[in-house]
């Protein structure tokens, strides 16, 4: 009887010695605040001017030739992060400086998105006539990034069209600045 009692006692001693208990716990909160972002730029970032010239016709009675003396295509890159994913943003363009010579229209054609970006990139508005009033060129921009540099985002192609020959007259260089703005829709 004594042996049994001692055996039971020893078993409990052994078991109790093997019990590993949780001693203490502590906690810390981790927070990340991911902000709203709306940023765009034009690539290439250096010398992104476009030169277009109106050359005199080679023969009398033939319309003037429009030449793009810089072949470089521009690209628009953007990054957008919205608080509410149901909302969207647009990019508008306008002539913010200078004046387009009389009788001539300046057009901007925006391509569909291509490149290394991800997310809900915007949709091109196609070809629009640039004026002093801002017009949407890319719409429906959600949470996305286009990728950085040329060949990312949307390409921008500019063209001149003569709308009224009667008003076209010889001028020296006419410079104008195009302003792009990304805004909440």
């Amino acid at each position, binding site marked *: 009887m004594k042996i049994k*009692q001692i055996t*039971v*006692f020893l*078993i*409990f*001693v052994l*078991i*109790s*010695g093997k*019990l*590993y*208990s*949780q*001693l*203490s*716990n*502590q*906690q*810390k*909160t*981790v*927070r*990340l*605040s*991911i*902000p*709203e*972002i709306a*940023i*765009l*730029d034009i*690539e290439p970032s250096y010398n992104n001017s476009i030169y277009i010239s109106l050359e005199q016709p080679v023969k009398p009675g033939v319309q003037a030739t429009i030449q793009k003396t810089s072949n470089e295509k521009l690209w628009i*890159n*953007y*990054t*957008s*992060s*919205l*608080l*509410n*994913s149901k909302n969207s943003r647009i990019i508008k363009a306008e002539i913010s400086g200078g004046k387009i010579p009389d009788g001539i229209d300046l057009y901007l054609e925006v391509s569909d998105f291509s*490149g290394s*970006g*991800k*997310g*809900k990139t915007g949709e091109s508005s196609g070809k629009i006539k640039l004026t002093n009033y801002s017009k949407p060129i890319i719409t429906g921009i959600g*949470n*996305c*990034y*286009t*990728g*950085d*540099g040329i060949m*990312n*985002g949307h390409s921008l192609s500019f063209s001149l069209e003569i709308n009224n020959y009667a008003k076209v007259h010889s001028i020296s260089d006419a410079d104008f600045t195009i302003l792009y703005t990304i805004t909440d829709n």
Partner: protein
Amino acid sequence: MLKKILYPVLFLLLTVSSQAQQLKLDINGTITFNSSDYMIKEAGKDFPSTINSASNIQLSISFINFWDKFFDSGKKWKIYVSKSDINWNQNINIEIARVGEGTSLRNGKRERIIGGTQFQPILNTPVYFFRGQNEIFNIPVAFKVHGVSVTGGAQEIESVIMFTIYED
């Protein structure tokens, strides 16, 4: 008959209670990330693929009872870590690593700390982090997050990181 059951149970209770709560875990510091890491400086880019914590926290393991410093100084322990999400984006992973040895009052004579030096993901279930022996103070712990993207939109994400110390 009563004695047969009573004695072992009493002994069990005594031994368990004597082992429990001998060590405690304390945390100093806060887990912060630089807001500048969440700024896009170049249009078209996303956030960096990995963002490191701007400040570390320090874990300290110490005896609750003063006399245990002398009579139970070989005490071994292990730490587990987990997270409990308050508002978390499942595309974002958070990792943790021990980035130092901490300090001890006895110049490391009987202190030991093993593991946890490689970044490992923090899951919603407890996972082993590192183990050690005796009192060690201010063990620095760093964090990093992966998968933060503008494609997830502007958001506040929050989780509670839980550390639990067990006897080893």
